[in-house]
């Protein structure tokens, strides 16, 4: 007797559908598994046998062969426990065989028959939908993460007995899943909570609009982290597809906490002692790194000068291409890494430059401090802003009540509340999409040098100002182009077609560090 169950396996951040074939026949009592299986898959034997027995269906002594195909894909993890159990139960004619082909079945079993959660459920369900499978049985604690999957009947199973019921009778369990609170908890950090720092907020807004990578420089304790952590709140709202894409990554990494999907853009701030694998992804069985966890969000590198130059160097290509290829043991996986890079650094060793009443670093010290940075990595940033010490010590509104009382009002009136800023960003992103509809890129950041002439037309005054800046700061060609790109974004923010002197002025003030300054 042979039965076939659809299940799935994870590779990188994508799932592939696999077929679990279970054959039971008379003969010597053996339990044999084939099909390029990892060690954890092989451990299924004991869990499955015991679990099936504990839901009162003892397996008759027989010859059991299990094959998971296609054999070309390496399968790892415990998600095949449940499909194997279902296959055996179908062979035993406890589950009706005709139901098998309608379902995707994934889950880990415990000895008492309980279905335990597994990583990557969202990716598996998403893949099944693409393959035209309409129904899925997933561990009940993974059910919430599938809430964005429409047009699918997804059942959360708590134990094996429930699975048997569902497969024999469609009405056995309520279909669909409980909606979470839609992630609309109002406690998302908001820019209106940060007092002052207008220059930094303006720079952040510009960076977010043109997707430019941003470098912040300033003394310790000026709220660089406070500012950076609020950047996701002003990026364009995520589409359903993007939420699924991000949630799939977090689901695979087991970071969803078996609850809801990710509805906000991620903000990742890895410590400077991070290993290359943790940053870029990898490992014996490749798992995503920080640059993939920050996909479609913000990656924040605080204390940039302390990161190992090699780590930063290896991030360059993935940042440019929006994905990273990880090859381990002949397995090649692509992890996405389309993100906005924000970094912070102290301007000098003590951190207080240019406040000469506190900083006594010599020019040489300062150059050496900046010199620690990898120049090619520094080149990834289009703009740099100096964040200075706030006038008063408080960075955030002190009086919580007062803050709450006028928050509503401030959100509406403050041009630098997250809501106001997000509106600007969405508008400017739309302008860029329209302008670059025939191009391969969609943000000003990615404007290639040869396209500058086409898309960045300066008026007379703007051109004159740029020429003077070029001479005064002895700009490099790259530095010059960056100023034009940033000025393009500033002009877009004001909805202007031509780049004018005020736009160039702002871009000059925010220009990145030049190599000559290092």
């Amino acid at each position: 007797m042979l039965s076939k169950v659809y299940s799935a396996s994870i590779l990188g951040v994508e799932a592939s559908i696999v077929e679990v074939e279970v054959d039971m026949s008379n003969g010597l009592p053996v339990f044999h598994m084939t099909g390029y299986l990892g060690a954890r898959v092989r451990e299924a034997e004991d869990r499955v046998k015991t679990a099936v027995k504990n839901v009162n269906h003892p397996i008759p002594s027989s010859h059991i062969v299990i094959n998971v195909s296609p054999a070309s894909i390496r399968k790892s993890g415990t998600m095949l426990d449940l499909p194997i159990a279902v296959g055996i139960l179908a062979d035993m004619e406890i589950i009706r065989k005709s139901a098998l082909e309608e379902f995707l079945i994934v889950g880990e079993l415990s000895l008492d028959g309980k279905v335990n959660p597994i990583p990557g459920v969202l990716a598996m369900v998403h893949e099944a939908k693409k393959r035209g499978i309409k129904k899925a049985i997933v561990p009940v604690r993974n059910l919430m993460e599938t809430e964005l999957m429409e047009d699918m009947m997804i059942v959360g199973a708590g134990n094996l007995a429930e699975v048997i019921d569902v497969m024999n009778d469609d009405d056995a369990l309520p279909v669909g899943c409980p909606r979470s609170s839609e992630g609309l908890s109002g406690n998302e950090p908001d820019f209106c909570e940060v007092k002052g720092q207008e220059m930094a907020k303006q720079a952040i807004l510009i960076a977010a609009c043109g997707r430019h990578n941003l470098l912040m420089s300033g003394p310790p304790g000026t709220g660089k982290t406070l500012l950076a952590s609020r950047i996701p709140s002003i990026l364009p709202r995520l589409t359903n597809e993007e939420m699924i894409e991000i949630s799939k990554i977090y689901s695979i990494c087991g970071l969803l906490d078996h609850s809801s999907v990710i509805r906000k853009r991620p903000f990742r701030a890895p410590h400077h002692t991070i290993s290359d694998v943790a940053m870029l992804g990898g490992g014996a069985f490749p798992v995503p790194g920080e640059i993939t966890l920050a996909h479609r969000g913000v990656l924040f590198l605080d204390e940039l000068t302390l990161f190992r130059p090699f780590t930063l160097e290896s991030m360059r290509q993935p940042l440019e291409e929006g994905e990273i290829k990880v090859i381990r043991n002949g397995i090649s996986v692509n992890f996405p890494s389309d993100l906005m890079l924000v970094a912070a650094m102290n301007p000098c060793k003590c951190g207080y430059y240019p406040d000469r009443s506190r900083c006594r670093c010599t020019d040489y010290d300062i150059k050496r401090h900046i010199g620690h940075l990898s120049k090619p990595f520094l080149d990834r940033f289009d703009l740099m802003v100096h964040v200075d010490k706030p006038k008063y010590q408080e960075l955030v509104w002190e009086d919580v009540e007062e803050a709450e009382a006028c928050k509503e009002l401030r959100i509406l009136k403050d041009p630098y509340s997250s809501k106001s800023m997000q509106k600007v960003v969405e508008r400017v992103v739309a302008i860029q999409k329209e302008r670059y509809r025939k191009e391969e890129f969609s943000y000003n950041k990615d404007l290639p040098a040869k396209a500058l002439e086409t898309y960045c037309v300066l008026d007379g005054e703007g051109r004159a100002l740029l020429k003077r800046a070029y001479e005064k700061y002895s700009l490099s060609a790259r530095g010059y182009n960056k100023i034009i790109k940033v000025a393009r974004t500033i002009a877009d923010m004001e909805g202007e077609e031509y780049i004018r002197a005020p736009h160039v002025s702002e871009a000059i003030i925010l220009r990145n560090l030049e190599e000559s300054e290092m």
Partner: protein
Amino acid sequence: MEMEEYYDFLMSSCPGIGNHRAEKLYAMFGSSKGAVEASVTDLVDSGILKKEEGEIFYDHVRSGANYQAYCQLKKDKIQLVSVHQKAYPTRLLTIPNRPYLLYIKGELPKEQPYSVAVVGARTCTQYGETMAFQIGRQLAMAGVNVISGLAKGIDGAAHRGALSVEGGKTYACLAGGVDLCFPREHIAMYEEMSERGGLISEYPPGMKPLAKHFPLRNRIISGLSDVVVVVEARERSGSLITVDAALEQNRMVMAVPGRMCDKMSLGCNQLLKLGAGIVTRPRDILEMLTQEVFHEDGYGCYRMDEEKEEALRCEEQSLKEQEKVKDHSLLHSLSAQEQMIYKVLDCTPKSINQITEESKMKIGMVIEALVSMEFKGFVKESARGSFERLL
């Protein structure tokens, strides 16, 4: 005479001997030749050197490497002047721990009429730099030697001021050998000074400028001068070591005042409180010199000649004119917004946030005005995102 100079070189270049004992040896053996030719026993018996020191000295003066070093020194046109020579600066003769031997690239400052030291912070503001430059310039115009330490910031500005005058002379006392330019950025100035002034050190050529040398070098700066002028010194600034040396050597101390709350000038203001002379214009220094500094040939007898007096008067006048022109052109060449921002600015750097807050203007307008004024030369971006007003 040539040989005596070589013996002086041998004696003073011996590690661990020091100025005081070099002089004692000279006195004991009647000449540096006598000291160099003395046996270890004689050296030790003199009671000046201990046994090991005597041996080191004995070996050192007989080492062949010295002669090569001496030849190189002559080839580099480095002069040597020992305390026994007539050319030795009279001002240095009376200071405690006077250098036994001076190495000079260029020349020594003329004894007459006056020498003034201008010292201050390495990291200074635009204000300090402008003041130091003007002081250096106007002193040089009056024919006064300008002495400093070739360091970045105030020192460099004072030297530059003196060099900006035709025929102006300026001298730097170094903390290492006179053949090494430190900091390297001042190489052009260093070259020019070896032609139009001099580089002076008590350390033999090739000696690196070590941190412990700097305080010692400061005593030579003040020792060579009649007045020490401090421009921008913080509370515990290295310039105050020069001031201590100056007071010990009985030199006049003057300071350029800063504003009350300005940390960059805290040291200067404290000096003023303690009774230092106040410099409200470079001429104050000249007046102090002619009134207070005693010379062998009379009290306050020095008078500037007509020509110098005239040049100085012209300079002062033209500075005033420039100021007026700037005031005038301000009104005309700056837009209303730019004028508002200019008023908010100061001669200490302010960040864009601060300027925006104080001017109550939109940040975009503030930035536009700042950039435009920077190109017009009214303001300076002293560090990224911080602007100060140019004087």
